[in-house]
């Protein structure tokens, strides 16, 4: 009993000594240790938004931001072996993605993450984003410019970018637009990662708001199919980026059901018209049916 206070005091002294290093989790070396060898990366990291993780007391990684992605680094600090540290860029896609999503799940762009084709195909976040580069090579600087975003997409989607070289195309090669004006690379409610605009419409109406409607007289494919039923938005040799070289064929390929709907259940009846298609006057249906996306006045979409 007489020894108890003495023992208690000794334990208290030992506890105080250990408390000095409790900020670092077991097995973690701390960002300052990383900077000892990786000084250039560390200096560049100061300018990166992720540096907030290193200084923010509330995020749980204060002083350990590097190891937030790379895993515990104490052993690597001793051995300097690459096998003793996680390298997210070299992980398989989904595992690399999980490294980022461990913190970034809670962001607006990730809401449709599971519908994202990139996610399904295990395209890692590091394919487009880097956290270590600074200045003109940083992700922020590259993606600030439309041409920078397009260049990143083009590194994989070679055949898609090639379509923009056709004469009738959105102004993507000119740098006036980028792929992410229409697509959300992180996923979207719509197929093909197409963004929503004006609520729950397709991204097209973000710029083509006059096609949004509603119209008193609707053209049904505008409502139950995407705009790509008639248009090729990336680029086409056909004017107005249509899918067909002749406008009347674009229309009549659907408007050929007799009766309507046909036995196959497809929509689009044959119009009760006497248009002689040999006459240039009838080669372009939209010369008369000019409100083809929907009309407020004419059920024949004439006005």
């Amino acid at each position: 009993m007489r020894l108890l206070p003495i023992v208690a005091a000794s334990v208290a002294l030992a506890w105080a000594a250990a408390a000095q290093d409790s900020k670092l989790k077991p097995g973690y070396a701390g960002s300052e240790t990383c900077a000892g060898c990786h000084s250039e990366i560390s200096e560049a990291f100061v300018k990166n938004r992720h540096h907030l993780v290193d200084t923010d007391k509330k995020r749980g990684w204060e002083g350990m931001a590097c190891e937030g992605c790379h895993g515990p680094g104490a052993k690597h600090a001793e051995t300097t072996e690459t096998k003793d540290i996680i390298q997210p860029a070299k992980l398989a896609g989904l595992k690399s993605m999980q490294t980022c999503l461990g913190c970034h799940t809670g962001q607006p762009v990730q809401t449709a993450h599971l519908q994202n084709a990139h996610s399904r195909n295990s395209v890692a976040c590091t394919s487009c984003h880097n956290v270590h580069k600074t200045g003109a090579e940083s992700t922020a600087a590259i993606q600030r410019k439309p041409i920078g975003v397009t260049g990143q997409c083009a590194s994989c989607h070679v055949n898609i970018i090639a379509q923009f070289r056709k004469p009738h195309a959105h102004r993507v090669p000119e740098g006036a637009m980028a792929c992410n004006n229409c697509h959300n690379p992180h996923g979207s409610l719509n197929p093909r990662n197409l963004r929503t605009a004006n609520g729950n419409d397709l991204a097209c109406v973000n710029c083509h708001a006059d096609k949004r409607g509603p119209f008193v007289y609707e053209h049904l494919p505008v409502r139950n199919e995407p705009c790509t039923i008639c248009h090729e938005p990336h680029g086409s040799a056909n004017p107005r980026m249509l899918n067909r070289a002749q406008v009347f064929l674009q229309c009549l390929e659907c408007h050929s059901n007799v009766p309507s709907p046909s036995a196959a259940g497809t929509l689009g009846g044959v119009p009760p018209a006497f248009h002689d298609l040999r006459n240039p006057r009838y080669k372009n249906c939209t010369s008369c049916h000019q409100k083809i996306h929907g009309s407020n006045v004419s059920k024949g979409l004439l006005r």
Partner: protein
Amino acid sequence: MKRQLFGLAISLTLPVTFAMAQDTQQAKPAEPAKTEAKKEEKKDAAPDQAAAKESPFTAEVEAGGRWISGVAGDFNTYRSVVNLQEGFRVNTVQMDFQKEGSKIADEMHFLANAWGDPYNTLRFTMDKYKVYRFTTNYSNMAYFNYLPSFANPGGAYAFNQRAYDTQVKNYMSELELLPQYWVSPYLIYERNSSDGLGITPLVLEGNEYPIRNLIDWNQVNYRGGVRGKFRKAFFNLEQAWTRFGDDQYTYINEINTGNRTFPYLGQQLRLTNANQYYSVRGTGPITRGSMSASPTNWLDIYGQVIYASPTTDVNYSQNEFGSIAARVPPYLFVGRSGAESFIGDARRPRSSGSFSLEARPNQRIRIREIFEADKSHVSGNGTNIVAYNQAPGTADITAQPPVWGRTEVSYFRQTVEALVDVAPKWTVRGGYRYEWGDSATNPSSTVGPLLGLEAGSLLRHVGLGGVTGRIGDKLSVNADIEASNGVKTYYRTGLQDYEKIRIQARYNLTTSWLLQANYSDLNNENPAVGVEYDFRARQAGLSLQWLPKGGRIATIVADYAWSGIRSDISYIIPSLFQTAQSLYVDNAHTGTLMADIRTPGVYGPRFSFGGSFVQTGGSRPTKYYQPIARVTMPLAKKFQFFSEWRYYDMNQTLYPQETFRTHMIMTGLRFLIQ
């Protein structure tokens, strides 16, 4: 005594033991301590050096003058495709400020591109950590389209009756407060507008008359919401309001005989005066909610719901004078004037949502379940009055055709998929997707009174599969397959029985050589009687990049892509009710080369050259070449001279009147401010 001595020994040795341990712990990082000392020296030195060479403000301006050689061929086609003009241009203005702890903003970035050109953009962002984030985007794009091959009812005449010469502008500003906090509110303002001129036909009974078209519409969105960002969860609630206006006006003040080349009931139809005025006003709320959460380390869930209910109010009027076919049944007269008015409205409540989850029962398996739904209907009604005057001194004949429209659309999609890491760098996935929906449109909405209610369904079973993997550190492969046994589709050209394959490979030949290849194939068929649709689209691409020494001395990127489309379906000629074949073929070869070579030395020039070519064959054979060459010459440390040559050459075999060629030279200066 012995016990007291023992106690004293314990009380002395215990602290000493811990002190020695502490010394050991402190001694252990003796190497780190030395490293730390070195780091401190480096850090002390580095900030001084960094401060000496790094300013928080950098800027870059590139501007010059463009000269065009003169457009050989059709100028309207050139404007429809390229549309660049001569004169002074500001290619780029970029200003960046980054200094943490500054009073107003920690970061500011301004970027403007192509000012003076027909498609220019501007972007400005401003951040103060943990206080606000402000973003503005603006774009102004000219849309000029005058291609007689598109709408030339005159046949021999090079006249396009569906022409546009407009400016499409987009503006967006977003202010987010407390962005790095758990809860941050935000406000967004968006505006999309288009105004300009065009040509459009005024369609009357028996004839259509191309007249002037003044285009003026705009849409504004006011959005406000709050984002909650927590460690394992996120939510976003947003309320928005849309306002839309369209004031299209078409008119003609001179005689116009229209497209009809033969008399109507023995008389030549013509207009002497006409106008048509739209006043469309739209409003509507948009409510959006989304969330994501990771309640456990093996489960992620996501969801979003969007509800929008836009409405449209229409006030339309039209007047025409001349020799006009009767506008009211039985259409057997030619009279002097006609008029039409319409007052009506339409509304379209629409609900969309999705819910998805990923479960990870162990380290290697992921199960994903996604459900998406979309439902809307459009109901429109109004009062339409058509008046027609046959002869002087007679009363107008009027008619009020029924005006009522309703369209209903629903769409659902259910997907379940499993992803399995079969090896450390290989993932295999397989799944099933079920899509279904219904659409209907009522008689008043259809083209003619002879057709009844049109209703259709969509029903599709889709199998999904894929594999992703890495072979060593250099080669990564990705393959995706989708196959469907469609039961019902909406349209004759819709997806029915299809297979879709996509393969992509990426190979790092060396640290400076990268090879990328991809291939995709979509094969769609609808064998149903009365449809017999056969469609195939294939694409293949190859890209080679060479960046010796990380791109510091040269960058060369070469791409080649081939695409082939073949669509074969029958259609009915309306006037004859006979079947004909619609065969669309497009084979396109596209190539791009960009080489950028830096000569050694601070004042060594930099050469860039390359360009792109497109050659298509099939239904609309086209050749389009765009070579480019550029030289940049540093004149001083932050001052460069540049000169750029571009050539545009477009040729269309079936439409030789829609070709053009032109040279373009732009020369200017580039300033760097640091």
